[in-house]
């Protein structure tokens, strides 16, 4: 069993999966009288691609928002790198090395692609207030170094051609990619992707899948993603959590999940004929 392998394991395609880096314990989230998440626990291992799937309104996005600090659960705990995480604001979570994208894309529309990606580097820039104000010393060096990092990410995601374009003018698929670039520029330990392929055509989906795999492979980034598209998820992820009406109804490898009767009834049975 995977769960017993405390120190991790090696996947079929030869990637090293490490020990548990983040654990959600008995998370319950309510909005007024509505329970969006009901007592859910699962863990995320270092270096794996972990998917959360489920029908509309299952509470997937809410779960991602709990991880990234946008929502605070009424019950339950989040453990990150071995210790319990106190309630945090989203920017504090981001500073801990957890980057994210949004389902509806939250980019800085008025800024260029390069500037957007540079905002991902903010937490790596330490120059003081005065140094920045007078553009002297540390601030100047930092700008150069981080600019270089940003350019690397831009190359990696093959968006060099639109570096200077204001994001507001880009088509939807490219915006999604820019958002990924911004998250990647932060060199996160964990990357949270909220429906990275929603609204894309087949070709764009293939590109995005490739990038997700490449990121995981190249940088060893742990990825937690939410997705509707079943086929994509099964191909991409190492382990899958299935949610329905705020409850967890399945958790395991894609094969395990696929053969889980409850999952088939709740989700696959509806989605496929």
């Amino acid at each position, binding site marked *: 069993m995977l769960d017993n392998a405390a120190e991790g394991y090696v996947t079929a395609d030869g990637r090293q999966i490490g020990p548990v880096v983040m654990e959600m314990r008995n998370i319950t989230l309510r909005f007024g009288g509505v329970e969006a998440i009901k007592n859910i626990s699962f863990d995320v291992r270092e270096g794996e691609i972990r998917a959360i799937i489920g029908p509309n309104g299952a509470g997937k996005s809410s779960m991602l928002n709990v991880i*990234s600090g*946008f929502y605070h659960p009424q019950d339950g705990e989040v453990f990150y790198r071995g210790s319990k995480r106190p309630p945090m*604001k*989203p*920017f*504090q979570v*981001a*500073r801990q090395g957890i*980057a*994210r994208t*949004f389902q509806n894309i*939250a*980019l*800085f*529309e*008025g*800024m260029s692609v390069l*500037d957007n990606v*540079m*905002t*991902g580097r*903010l*937490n790596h*820039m330490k*120059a003081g*207030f005065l140094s*920045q*104000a007078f*553009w002297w010393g540390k*601030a100047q060096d*930092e*700008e150069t170094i981080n600019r270089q990092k940003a350019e690397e990410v831009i190359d990696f995601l093959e968006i060099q051609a639109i570096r200077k374009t204001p994001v507001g003018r880009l088509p939807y698929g490219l915006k999604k990619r820019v958002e990924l670039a*911004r*998250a990647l520029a*932060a060199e996160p330990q964990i990357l949270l992707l909220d429906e990275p392929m929603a609204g894309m055509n087949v070709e764009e989906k293939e590109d995005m899948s490739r990038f997700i795999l490449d990121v995981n492979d190249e940088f060893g980034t742990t990825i937690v993603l939410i997705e509707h598209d079943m086929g994509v998820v099964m191909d991409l992820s190492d382990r899958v959590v299935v949610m329905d009406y705020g409850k967890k109804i399945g958790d395991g490898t894609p094969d395990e999940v696929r053969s889980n009767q409850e999952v088939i009834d709740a989700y696959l049975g509806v989605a496929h004929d």
Partner: protein
Amino acid sequence: MPEQLVFAMEVTLNGLMTGVMYALVALGFVLIFKASGIFNYAQGVMALFAAMTLVGIQQGRVPFAHVINEIFGTDIHYFGWEVPALLAILLTVIVMIAFAYLVQRFVFKHLVGQEPIILFMATIGLAYFLEGVSDLMWGSEIRNLDVGLPQGINDWIDVTTFEALGYGFFIDNLDIAATLIAAILVIGLIAYSQYTKNGRAMRAVADDHQAALSVGISLNYVWVLVWSLAGIVALVAGIMWGSKSGVQFSLSLIALKALPVLMLGGFTSIPGAIIGGLIIGVGEALFEFAIGPMIGGATENWFAYVLALVFLVFRPQGLFGEKIIERV
């Protein structure tokens, strides 16, 4: 050259320089509005407060002297030293940053996510509160402000224009200095917002709060930052207007002059604030020059507002403001 045209040129030049002053006040509004959606009615009072503080520090006045004397039965007014202008400006900047922090910590932190009208009301409250504090701290007499800026007619321009046109222009050195300083300030602000970490964070917050949070930007920090910058801009505006006509409570009314500038330039555009200020400055000067005598003068009082009103009807987002497009 016909005499009227020469006069008009002089009026235009002076109008441009007044416009720079308007622009400077409008700039403070734009900074805060862009980053937080707060229309800061207190911007004018901040200029007054900054100028008052500067004069107070410079002359070595004891803050809250009146209160202290009342309570302890003492009679102190001065520390007995004078602070050099540059140091006094630096100290005032620190006071304005402290003010920014306090405003964010005790007022706007508690109003996050409220309706714009509520935020606006809060700034009105803040304006009168600050006016009171300013009065209590430094007294309400008119003060002369002198930080060593040149004053009086610029001889070179006077002589040059006299030789060329047969009529010497009257351009105040103070206006020239103000224009230069304003230009440096604007270029500095733009460079700061384009090329530094904090500047980028500022633009990010102005663009999308949620996205800004997700890349690790603290909204609170950025808001303190923009209020500080607006405080510094207010100080510069306070110095300019204060050197011109003394530091007095009517200084806070320059905020009202910034309103038409904002309507013209758009509430979210720094270049808009500049151009808007220049248009209003020149427009009202020329109007007063050309039409004023026919209708009894004093058109400066209302011309700017009428111009802004016309603009509002035809281009509600201002010259450079973001276009208001709503999908149905």
